[in-house]
């Protein structure tokens, strides 16, 4: 069992009366590509948002490289309304803002692309390097951080080259074709030098030929950048082709996990996707 | 009895000015509810209603002037929306707000040009400006009739919003602007109706306010406008009962502060209250939380 990178423990997310994620437990180990699949509204993006600190879970914890980075337990009104289990297990609250989690080394992309629309491709990547800066407000303003600025630009150009985006370096981010915008979002996430990359439906809206390119591309960046990748995806051929392990969510509950071929033949997964066969 | 006669005037002034703020606050809360726009010019429309009355009463009897003022104010409110806000329907929120500031700037300067900066004397409206004595305290009848009139108007408005088709369209628009358009609601006419109602209530508010405080100057609308907005936020922006209750609370507390002698800070208090509400309970007393999806 190689070293564990991400561990989600008893995570439950309840909005008012609706339980979006129910007692989720999953793990992602170093160097793995793990996929999280399930029908629409199964709570996949909600799980991502809990891991990346967009909102704290109603109950449960998240560990990164063995250290607990997120924890919460039902409080106030929620204590009465809480529907999930393992209530007593957690007692104090760790709720870092998303930027603190990114600084730990977890980068993410978004289901609907969120590029910086008034900036060029090159600048979008430069912005992501801001968090690794060593300069402070004064040295940066007085442009005394010449070397740091040069390194940032070289690093950005290097990423652009690896991701074959050199030709659109000075284009406005939003004027790129769809596929390239996806790739720019990934490049921008890589600029934060992550060790764990969370991809939220990277192949959404792509045609089969683009999806194949993306499949090879994800494998390549996993190796080049020594990454661990945790991905939400609907394109089954991409998922089955590239994932080491798969978790399946339905209505917020984990209904199946394992290698691609185990999950493919699991009846519960099929019924979740295709609905139960009415036996007359 | 002595404590009562000493402090009753503050309370009555508070209730009366609170009621007048309520009529303005409703305009803010309705417009914000649908357009998410702080209508900076609303206070100035209130001032223009006062000025129109001053000039109308010099050429015609008062009972003719009052309906004229109501109609003219409504028309101005409607025009402001069509000219200054409709073209910016799809523009970012900041430019719509800047346009609102521009309209307020324009209305104040036009009033300055017409009146020459001279404080105009508001005419005495027949029945409501007479002085009466209540529990030994002399004041104007308007102070007494404002609260019931306000409650009556608000009840009528709430009925309109709850029961009529246009009311339902407004509620839909305030919940979700885009989808209500998809449902075939003519958004522009709903928005115009909102401004019409808001301006009408502001005109009624000006009739009451100026018969109590008769000096009408170009900038007289600014402070009541801001206080009415604070009331709308305090009561829960978007909720009409909230705006009314918030306005009464602000009117009364402002006068109590003056009564206690801290008069220098009566306005500063209103803003301090606003900031406290914005930070600790941004939805105000009755507003519903509106969180945007990631």
């Amino acid at each position, binding site marked *: 069992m190689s070293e564990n990178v991400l561990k989600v423990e008893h995570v439950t997310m309840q909005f008012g009366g609706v339980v979006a994620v129910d007692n989720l437990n999953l793990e992602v180990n170093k160097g793995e590509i793990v996929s999280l699949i399930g029908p629409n509204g199964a709570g996949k993006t909600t799980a991502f948002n809990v891991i990346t600190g967009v909102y704290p879970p109603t109950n449960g914890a998240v560990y990164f490289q063995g250290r607990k980075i997120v924890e919460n337990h039902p409080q106030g009104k929620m204590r009465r309304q809480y529907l999930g289990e393992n209530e007593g297990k957690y007692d104090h609250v760790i709720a870092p803002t998303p930027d603190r989690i990114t600084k730990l080394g977890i980068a993410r992309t978004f289901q609907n692309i969120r590029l910086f629309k*008034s900036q060029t491709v090159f600048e979008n990547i430069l912005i992501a390097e801001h968090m690794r800066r060593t300069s402070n407000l004064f040295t*940066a*303003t007085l442009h005394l951080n010449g070397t740091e600025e040069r390194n940032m630009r070289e690093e950005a150009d290097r990423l652009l080259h690896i991701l074959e985006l050199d030709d659109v370096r000075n284009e406005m981010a939003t004027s790129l074709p769809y596929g390239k915008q996806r790739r720019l979002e990934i490049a921008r996430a890589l600029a*934060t030098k992550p060790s764990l990359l969370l991809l939220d439906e990277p192949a959404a809206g792509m045609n089969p030929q683009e999806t194949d390119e993306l499949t090879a591309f994800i494998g390549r960046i996993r190796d080049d950048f020594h990454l661990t990748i945790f991905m939400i995806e609907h394109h089954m051929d991409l998922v089955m082709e590239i994932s080491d392990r798969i978790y399946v969510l339905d209505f917020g509950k984990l209904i199946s996990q394992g290698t691609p071929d185990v999950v493919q033949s699991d009846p519960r997964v099929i019924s979740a996707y295709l609905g139960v066969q009415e036996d007359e | 009895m002595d404590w009562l006669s000493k402090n009753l005037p503050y309370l009555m002034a508070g209730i009366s000015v609170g009621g007048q703020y309520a009529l303005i606050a409703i305009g803010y809360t309705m417009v914000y509810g649908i357009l998410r726009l*702080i209508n900076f010019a609303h206070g100035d429309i209130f001032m223009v209603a006062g000025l129109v009355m001053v000039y109308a009463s010099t050429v015609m009897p008062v009972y003719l002037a009052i309906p004229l003022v109501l109609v003219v104010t409504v028309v101005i409110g409607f025009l402001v929306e069509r000219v200054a806000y409709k073209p910016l329907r799809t523009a970012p929120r900041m430019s719509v707000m800047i346009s609102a500031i*521009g309209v307020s700037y324009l209305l104040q300067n036009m009033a300055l040009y017409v009146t020459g900066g001279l404080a105009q004397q508001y005419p005495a409206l027949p029945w409501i400006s007479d002085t009466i004595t209540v529990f030994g305290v002399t004041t104007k009848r308007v102070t007494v009739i404002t609260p019931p009139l306000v409650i009556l108007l608000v009840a009528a408005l709430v009925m309109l919003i709850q029961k009529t088709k246009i009311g339902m369209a407004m509620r839909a628009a305030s919940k979700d602007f885009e989808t209500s358009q998809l449902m075939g609601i003519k958004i522009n006419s709903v928005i115009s109706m909102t401004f019409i109602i808001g301006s009408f209530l502001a005109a009624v508010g000006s009739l009451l306010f100026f018969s109590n405080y008769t000096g009408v100057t170009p900038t007289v609308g600014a402070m009541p406008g801001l206080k009415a907005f604070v009331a709308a936020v305090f009561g829960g922006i978007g909720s009409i009962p909230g705006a009314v209750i918030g306005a009464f609370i602000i009117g009364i507390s402002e006068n109590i502060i003056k009564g206690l002698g801290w008069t220098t*800070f009566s306005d500063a208090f209103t803003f301090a209250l606003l900031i406290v509400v*914005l930070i600790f309970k941004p939805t105000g007393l009755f507003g519903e939380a509106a969180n945007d999806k990631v």
Partner: protein
Amino acid sequence: MKKQTEAIISVALIAALLAVLFILERTIPSTSMLFTVLKKGAIYALVAVSMNLLNGFTGLFSLGQAGFMLVGAYTYGVLTIPVDQRPNVYMYYDGGMIQFALHPIAAIIIAGIIAGIFAYLIGLPVLRLKSDYLAIATLGFAEIIRAVFQWDKLGPLTNGSNLLRNYPSYKSVLFYFIAAGVCIALIVMLINSTYGRAFKAIRDDEVAAEAMGINLAHHKRIAFVVSSFFAGISGALLAMYQTSIQASMFKSAMTYEILLIVVIGGIGSITGSCISSFLFIILSEWLLRFLDSELVIGGFKVPLLRSGFRKVVFSIIIMIIVLFFRQGIMGTKEFSVRRIFNRITGRSRKSSEGRNGR
């Protein structure tokens, strides 16, 4: 066109401007209207750029600029009135509390720092608010600051409702151009630095910026404090320009004026704010003054022209710009020597070294 040549040309342009001013100052009488307007234009350019840093580059819609200018102006005034003049100025507060006077330059910087401190304290509760609530909260704080500075219990420090005057002020227009120029240059360098890029990221998409490791609260606070620091300095310069200050003049109307200058210049364009502030001041305080007084051309009395008409015309112009020229004069583009050079030499912008190579 390499970066070095462009830098040289820009420096040369600035030097030429200062030389022209220097010569003008020697030739035209020093009280001419031109200098008054240029001085005020430079001051309003600085405060417009500082507001643009907030509204245009970080997407924080703040209406508190007049409040921080007031703090800056009062700090400068209170710290520099010569000790022998204090009994004269603080007539009703027997000479006032502070009995020392600082050098004007030191006082200007302290004015900025104290405005920054006020901004830091106000920013703590306020910066979490959404755009329109932030606007109203900052507007509210500016009004509270004004009420406090007018309070007569604080009279020994702020002279209550009375004017602060008799403090030293520089008369030469060069001083105002250099002071405002240096501050604007600093803001431009900040915007072109990595922090500037973080501000623009927050403006474009807060959620994405946070996901890219940008601490929103921290960076919003920096933008707010830096903007208020420079608003404080421009308040001090305004105090110098006017030779007397009173809290009642820093009303919200002043903030609206600055906001309209930023809008006319183009939100998100530094050079736009500078150009439009000079245009605004020259037009409203000088050229359009004739609209206020009766004008008889060949025996025919021009109608409508009487006092107050100038401000009406001005607000109509502003509405036209806000509604039809939403980009303002410069939109988000900057006046850059390269763009002019390319236009002259006909080469299209794309083939040159690119937008970010400034």
